[in-house]
């Protein structure tokens, strides 16, 4: 692998002369990841940085096992299959919740708000693309609030919604709403006037043109908007959970920081990154299955 990386090679048959960035970057990415993890391990083994600032990887892993209650659940499985009489290991988790409970609470908030944003922002974005009155109504508020950081209007959501779940959902909802609406609106423009004329000249009604031509043509951009939105949702999660949340990955990280439990802070960050990454992979696969024509027409 290293030889392939550093050996000088002449142009090969599949390579196009001068095309920027051709070839696969997977091998290089793998090396990068190994170097980062290896560097982390070496630095902590040699004691160059105190665990308070940079905990060793194995500390994070053992914290993961403890907070996720792996032993407790493993024994439960053993009891179920009859290999053990009763569950001995306790499950303390962190802040009274096991890791999976933190994750589920955060997933509920992010995906709940994301789902609400999708069902409202797609019709509004399409309406903005189709109708100048709708565009006139929705454009100023969306363009006004879009660049404001969620932390800035967090106090307002507390005043309006209190410290319950609805305020948290609203904060993440706002973060997800704008990118979906803006992309849906842009998607309307990706339908060509010839496609619309063709439909009308085959006897389509306005409603049929909207549902069977415009919506379908806008789908690739709507999905792009959803991918951007869910990333914004994760970004806003920690801010949303700052306010009186009992469980959640964000609140877990915040509480851990308060007790200087750096290993748990690391764990929380890695979990958020991993969940967001897995979801993005799923969205990309979903996209390939749903809009295989994207970029080909």
């Amino acid at each position, binding site marked *: 692998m290293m030889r392939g990386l550093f050996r000088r090679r002449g142009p090969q048959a599949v390579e196009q002369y001068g095309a920027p960035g051709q070839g696969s970057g997977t091998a290089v990415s793998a090396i990068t990841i190994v170097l980062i993890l290896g560097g982390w391990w070496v630095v902590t083994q040699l004691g160059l940085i105190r665990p308070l600032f940079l905990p060793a990887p194995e500390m994070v892993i053992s914290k993961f096992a403890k907070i996720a209650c792996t032993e407790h659940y493993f024994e439960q499985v053993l009891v179920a299959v009859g290999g053990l009489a009763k569950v001995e290991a306790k499950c303390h988790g962190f802040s009274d919740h096991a890791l999976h409970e933190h994750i589920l609470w955060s997933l509920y908030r992010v995906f709940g708000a994301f789902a609400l944003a999708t069902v409202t922002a797609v019709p509004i974005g399409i309406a903005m693309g189709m109708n100048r009155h709708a565009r006139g109504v929705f454009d100023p508020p969306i363009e006004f609030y879009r660049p404001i950081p969620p932390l800035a209007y967090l106090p307002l959501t507390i005043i309006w919604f209190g410290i319950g779940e609805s305020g948290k959902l609203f904060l993440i909802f706002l973060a997800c709403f704008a990118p979906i609406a803006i992309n849906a609106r842009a998607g309307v423009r990706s339908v*060509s006037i*010839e*496609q619309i*004329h*063709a*439909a*009308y*000249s*085959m*006897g*389509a*009604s306005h409603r*049929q043109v909207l549902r*069977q*031509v415009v919506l*379908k*043509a806008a*789908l690739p951009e709507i999905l792009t908007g959803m991918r951007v939105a869910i990333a914004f949702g994760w970004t806003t999660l920690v801010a949303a959970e700052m306010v009186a949340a009992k469980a959640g990955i964000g609140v877990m990280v915040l509480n851990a920081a308060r007790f200087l439990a750096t290993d748990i802070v690391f764990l929380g960050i890695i979990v958020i990154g991993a969940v967001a990454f897995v979801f993005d992979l799923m969205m990309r696969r979903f996209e390939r299955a749903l*809009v*295989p*024509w994207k970029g*080909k*027409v």
Partner: protein
Amino acid sequence: MTAIVSLDRVSVEFPAVDGAGAVRALEDVSLEFRDNEFVVALGASGCGKTTLLNVIAGFLSPTSGEVLHKNTPVRGPGPDRGVVFQKHALLPWLNVLENTEFGLKLQGVAKDERLSRARDYLALVGLSDFERYPIYQLSGGMQQRVGLARALTCDPDMLLMDEPLGALDAFTRENMQELVLDAWRKTRKVVFFITHSVEEALFMATRLIVMSPRPGRITHTYDIDFCRRFFETGNAREVKSSSDFIALREEVLSIIYGEETGDGPP
């Protein structure tokens, strides 16, 4: 013979925009399309060919005058006038067969009937083996054949073709000319066909109208029969290299070039 579609003193004026004066895209155009005619419009860019097609299709309302379809005024686009576009305008989320039956689906025709009709017309354009293909995997010529099959499947009285072969390479283009003529002969539609190519116009038309810009109008009309000679002999090269074909080609070319050089800058 009665006219399928007729234009009565149609004018189209585009209002002035950003300092440019108002444009008379069409002035007092009267035209009749009769049964089984293949009318080709030829002319330099900006002579109003596409405006004329858009008015007939119903995408554009005339500023004055009237378009009649079987003595009823045209108020907008409809399935009685099928359109084939320069860029194929197919729907990439549907495959070849689904694109072809799309018009019948919009009209609420039952599935069995629309599939059998769509398959008939795909066979007519030679694409029976490509039913399940996504359209972005087809060549430009094949995409235009799907566009033609799609328009024919709706069974319109009239077929409007806006430079349908303009984006194709020379070889594919000549094959497509023969394919379009073949489809026209078998379906007996009235065709209105726009092109930039004098040779294509002469080869395909039963009636050729030459248009001229500023204001857009019809300056010359020719009744010709080169396509019928092609049907008799089956040899397109022989028709296109016959002496009367070449003579008429030079005459039409001199009309078009004469306008372009004689007019000077507007």
